[in-house]
């Protein structure tokens, strides 16, 4: 395995690929820093750029964007009290307080270093854990893959936040959408209305761009934000060694928390950041000062949110189950490059996989270098006015969708789903379940029907295999657990509204 990783580094350490990785990290940091643009949107928007590239180049660039975007959100969180991405929401608490005290430079330094540590830890975990998990997954057959798809789909309830019912509805709509095209077993055309454009199904990337990018651009066009002025001085202030020492334990804990949460499908960087911040509040010697502007309050969430990046790629690469919304997009990108995530990926395309591991490790190094060196520049980027940015996003969406197959049809799909996504956001229907269902729905149907062919129609095939039973059990736990969590949250909110219980 060490040899494969070394070979991966040799592949990535080429000038062209390094340049793409650097460009990806820089684009990611800029996208993350801009409020209103999420990491998911950035990866969705820039995925079409990877079509003309070989798999290693394209995927390494996307990984760079992912790392950069998760970190970049902290820049606006600290400077203007607005998280650039949901992952940086916890960073606002102490980050902006530090900026108000005139210590924005220290806060930004700590967020960069903590992000690097968390990201690097999770990248190393990915490189060592994923191949072992893939060996277990090699024994999977159609029943296991069906159960895995069901477990993946059950995550819909987790990623729906407070709207579990609406999330399930969105997921089932996505599943119905996935039925368009040729039946995977018999080849019968379903819901194509005689149009050859529908024979291969709805193209995934235009749907992604429409749902995540265009809908957000509509919302931005509707609600014009005022021009942002940054009046904090970020020049040259680094923490002292004594200040850094107080954060080391927090960074280690945050990195572990982030990696573990990243491995759990659907729990993303925002969850990891808050869990880490909560743990810091519980165990820190400076717990009473948290919230007033202490460096630990920046180190905890930032190490955790970047710790998710490698962790989320473990289930993605080994099982084909995305760890969060961004890796759901990357799943689509992998498939478009002709790479099917899962244990066979490690067998048939080990060179690509280990190059990806090396790319993720190097992406964190670039993030550290550009983060520390380019902070003033990135701070200026936040000030790009919305009237200039939003139209550029619209045009980029059109060009990106067109570039897939040079069809205006894909642009039309993108626009339709942009409008649908806009209404979904207005009506508080989560968007991620649609994407997850679109990816996993065909797999679920294909493996179910293949399993029934193998068993000649008997359902016993699903209940006599231990891994299948385990995955079904996890599916039930996932759905029931999410529902119970939502009910508890609603009851707590009601009790707080009545003034019966103190807030945490």
């Amino acid at each position: 395995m060490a040899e494969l990783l070394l070979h991966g580094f040799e592949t990535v350490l080429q000038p062209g690929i390094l340049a793409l990785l650097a460009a990806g990290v820089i684009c990611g940091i800029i996208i993350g820093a801009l409020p209103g643009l999420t990491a998911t949107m950035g990866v969705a928007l820039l995925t079409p750029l990877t079509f003309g590239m070989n798999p290693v180049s394209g995927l390494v660039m996307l990984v760079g964007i992912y790392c950069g975007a998760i970190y970049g959100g902290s820049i606006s969180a600290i400077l203007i009290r607005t998280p650039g991405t949901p992952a940086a929401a916890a960073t606002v608490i102490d980050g902006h307080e530090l900026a108000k005290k005139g210590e924005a430079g220290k806060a930004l330094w700590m967020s960069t270093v903590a992000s690097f540590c968390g990201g690097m830890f999770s990248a190393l975990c990915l490189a060592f854990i994923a191949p072992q998990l893939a060996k277990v997954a090699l024994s999977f057959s159609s029943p296991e893959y069906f159960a895995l798809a069901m477990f993946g789909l059950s995550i819909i309830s987790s990623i729906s936040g407070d709207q579990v019912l609406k999330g399930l509805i969105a997921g089932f709509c996505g599943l119905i959408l996935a039925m368009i095209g040729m039946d995977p077993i018999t080849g019968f055309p379903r819901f194509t209305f005689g149009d050859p454009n529908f024979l291969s199904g709805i193209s995934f990337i235009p749907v992604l761009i429409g749902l995540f990018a265009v809908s957000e651009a509509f919302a931005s066009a509707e609600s014009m934000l005022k021009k942002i002025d940054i009046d904090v001085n970020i020049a040259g202030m680094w923490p002292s060694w004594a200040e850094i020492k107080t954060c080391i334990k927090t960074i280690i804990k945050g990195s572990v928390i982030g990696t573990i949460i990243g491995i759990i499908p659907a729990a993303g960087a925002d969850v990891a950041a808050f869990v880490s911040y909560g743990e810091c509040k519980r165990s820190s010697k400076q717990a009473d000062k948290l919230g007033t502007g202490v460096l630990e309050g920046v180190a905890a969430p930032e190490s955790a949110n970047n710790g998710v990046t490698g962790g989320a790629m473990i289930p993605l690469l080994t099982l084909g189950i995305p760890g969060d919304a961004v890796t759901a997009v990357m799943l689509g990108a992998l498939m478009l490059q002709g790479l099917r995530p899962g244990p066979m990926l490690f067998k048939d395309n080990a060179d690509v996989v280990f190059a990806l591991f090396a790319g993720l490790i190097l992406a964190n190094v670039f993030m550290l270098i550009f983060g520390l060196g380019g902070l003033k520049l990135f701070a200026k980027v936040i000030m790009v006015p919305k009237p200039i940015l939003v139209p550029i996003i619209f045009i980029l969406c059109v060009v990106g969708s067109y570039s897939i197959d040079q069809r205006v049809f894909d642009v039309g799909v993108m626009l339709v789903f942009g409008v649908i996504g806009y209404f979904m956001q207005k009506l508080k229907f989560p968007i991620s379940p649609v994407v997850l269902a679109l990816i996993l729905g065909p797999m679920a149907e294909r493996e179910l029907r293949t399993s029934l062919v193998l068993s000649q129609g008997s359902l016993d095939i699903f209940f006599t295999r231990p891994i299948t039973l385990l995955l079904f059990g996890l599916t039930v736990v996932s759905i029931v657990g999410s529902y119970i969590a939502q009910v508890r949250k609603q009851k707590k909110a009601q009790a707080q509204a009545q003034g019966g219980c103190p807030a945490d």
Partner: protein
Amino acid sequence: MKIGNYVAAVFLFALCGSVWYLSADFPGSQGNIPGPAFFPRGLALVLALLTGLLLYTNRNTSVKEKLFDFHGPGIKRALIMLATTVAYSFLVNIVGFILLTPLCLLLMMLIMEPEKIVVKVIASVATTAILYLVFEVGLNVPLPAWSF
């Protein structure tokens, strides 16, 4: 939100009904092996049940958020941006990327904020140039050209 949920429910029931109706002509199951209609119909059924549950829970919703402010400039701006993007999508294959993109970008930027025209002209032209260099030159992805 309450009215919005009711409208969404109508669309969802219509979707379920359409899926059920359209899948009636699909080939049937072969023995115990489900045919092409099995999954779509199963999904439509479950979706109809979930939509019914949404209607039921919506009865008790007291949230009266106003989803759209039709009198404010925001929704009009969003609609104009949509119309411009749609027009761009159809016309770009005729007029060509290099000619149409900076014009559309400038138009949309001025719709968002009708000031600082020079900055917006520079931004439109620069964006077009960057996109052309990245896609057409860097990635060999052909962009629409002038048709005439």
